[in-house]
C-alpha cells in the first residue's frame, strides 16, 4: 500500500461504526465508546480498544469482529491495542447510542450516578432502598424498581416497570 492511498482515520471510524456490539447488536463499537484511537504509524493502522468490563467475555470477540471488518475493507497491515487508561465509562456512550438503546428496550445509563462504593449504607439509611428513577423504555413511566444490580450481561442491571409491568434492562452507569 502506498501512503497516498491510505484511507483516512475518519473513514476507518465510519467502517468501525458498522461493527455491532455482540451483546447489544443495535449499537456499534464506536457508539459504545470503546474505540479510543485510530492512527496510522507509517503504513500500519493502529486501533486502540478499551474493554467495557474487565471480565467481559465479549472483549475477545469484539477484537475479532474489528479485525474481520478491517480485512474486509482491504486493510492488511494493522494492530489492535488494548488500552486500559482512562478506564471506560458509560458516559462515553454517544447520544445516538442512548436513543438506539431506548428503542431496543434497554434504559440508557443516567450519567453521574456511578456507584462510589460508599452509597449503599447511606442510601439504605435515607430511603430504605437505593433505587434510581430509571424511566421505563417501553412506556416512559418513572415508577420503576430495581430487581437486581446485575442483568443478562455485565453491563446491565435488571429493572421492572410498575405501570406497564414489563421487566427491562438498565444499562449500568459506571
Amino acid at each position, binding site marked *: 500500500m502506498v501512503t497516498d492511498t491510505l484511507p483516512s482515520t475518519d473513514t476507518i471510524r465510519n467502517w468501525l461504526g458498522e461493527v455491532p456490539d455482540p451483546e447489544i447488536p443495535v449499537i456499534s463499537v464506536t457508539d459504545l465508546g470503546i474505540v479510543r484511537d485510530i492512527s496510522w504509524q507509517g503504513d500500519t493502522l493502529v486501533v486502540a480498544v478499551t474493554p467495557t468490563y474487565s471480565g467481559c467475555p465479549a472483549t475477545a470477540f469484539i477484537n475479532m469482529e474489528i479485525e474481520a471488518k478491517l480485512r474486509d475493507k482491504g486493510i492488511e497491515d494493522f494492530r489492535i491495542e488494548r488500552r486500559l487508561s482512562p478506564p471506560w465509562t458509560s458516559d462515553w456512550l454517544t447520544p445516538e447510542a442512548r436513543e438506539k438503546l431506548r428503542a431496543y428496550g434497554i434504559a440508557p445509563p443516567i450519567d453521574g450516578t456511578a456507584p462510589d*462504593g460508599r452509597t449503599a449504607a447511606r442510601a439504605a439509611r435515607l430511603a430504605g432502598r437505593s433505587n434510581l428513577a430509571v424511566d421505563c423504555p417501553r412506556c416512559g413511566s418513572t415508577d420503576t424498581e430495581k430487581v437486581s444490580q446485575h442483568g443478562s450481561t455485565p453491563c446491565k442491571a435488571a429493572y421492572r416497570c410498575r405501570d406497564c409491568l414489563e421487566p427491562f434492562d438498565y444499562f449500568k452507569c459506571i
Partner: protein
Amino acid sequence: MPSLPDMATPEAERLAQEAAQPADPHITDVALKPALFDWLCRMGDGALILGHRTSEWCGHGPALEEDIALANTALDLIGHAALWLELAAEVEAQGRTADDLAYLRDAMRFRNPQIVELPNGDIGRTLMREFLYDAWHYEMLLKLRDSSSPRVAEIAAKAGKEVAYQLDRASDLVIRLGDGTEESHARMQAALDHLWPYTGELFTDDAVDEAVAEAGIAPRASELQGPWDATLREVMGEATLTVPDRRADVHLGGKQGRHTEHLGYILAEMQFLQRAYPGAEW
C-alpha cells in the same frame, strides 16, 4: 484466563496482545522483581480464588437474579485476576503467561489471603465474605490509583470502578439480611463471627508489602486497616450486627503460600483441564 473460541481469525489474540503500554521502570527493576512478582500474585490470586468461589453459585443461587448477579461478580473478579497475573507474568519474564500462573501453579505458590479460599457456606456467609473482601479491595484499589507504577495504577483505576459497584451491592445485601428476619440476622452474625479471625491477614505486613511500599507502588497492608474499619462499622451498624471483640489476625500465612486444606480442592477442580490436557484450548 479462559479465552473465547477463536473461530475465524487466528491472529486476533496476537494482535490484541501487542498492546502499547505506558513506560514503567518498575516492571524491569531486577532488585524489585521477587517482591513485585509476589505482590502482583497476591492481587491476582485473591481475585482469582474469590472469583472461582463466587462462580460456584452459578446455577445454585437462591433466586434467579442473585444467581446472575453472583455470576457477573465472579466474571469481574476473574477479569481482575487476568490483568494482575498478566502483569505478574511480564514482571517475572520467564515466558509464563497469566494462564500458566492460574492453571499450573501448585497451592504453595498461591499468594491469596486465606479468607477467599474458605468454602462459601450459605448465601449469608458468601455475601458477608464478599463484603469483607470488597471493602478491603476497594480501599486498596483507591490507594493504588496513585501508585508510582503506571501499569499498576491503570489496572487499579479499571478494577476500582467495578469493585465500587460490588461493594455497594454487598453492603446493601448485608444490611438487608442483617437487619432482616430473626433467621437472616442470626445467620449473618454467625457468618461475621466465623470469618472474623481471617480478616486480620489482609492488614498484616511482611517483607513483600514493605518492599513494594518503599518503591511507592502500593500502600502497606496495615495502612488499609483504618478506612476498612470505618466502612465495616458503618455497614455493620446499619445491619444491626455486632463486630466481634476478638483478635482478627488468627489465621495467617496465605499471602506467603501457607493455605488451608480448602485451596487444594479448589485447584483440583479449577486446574483439572490444563493438568489433564496440557495446552488445551476451546
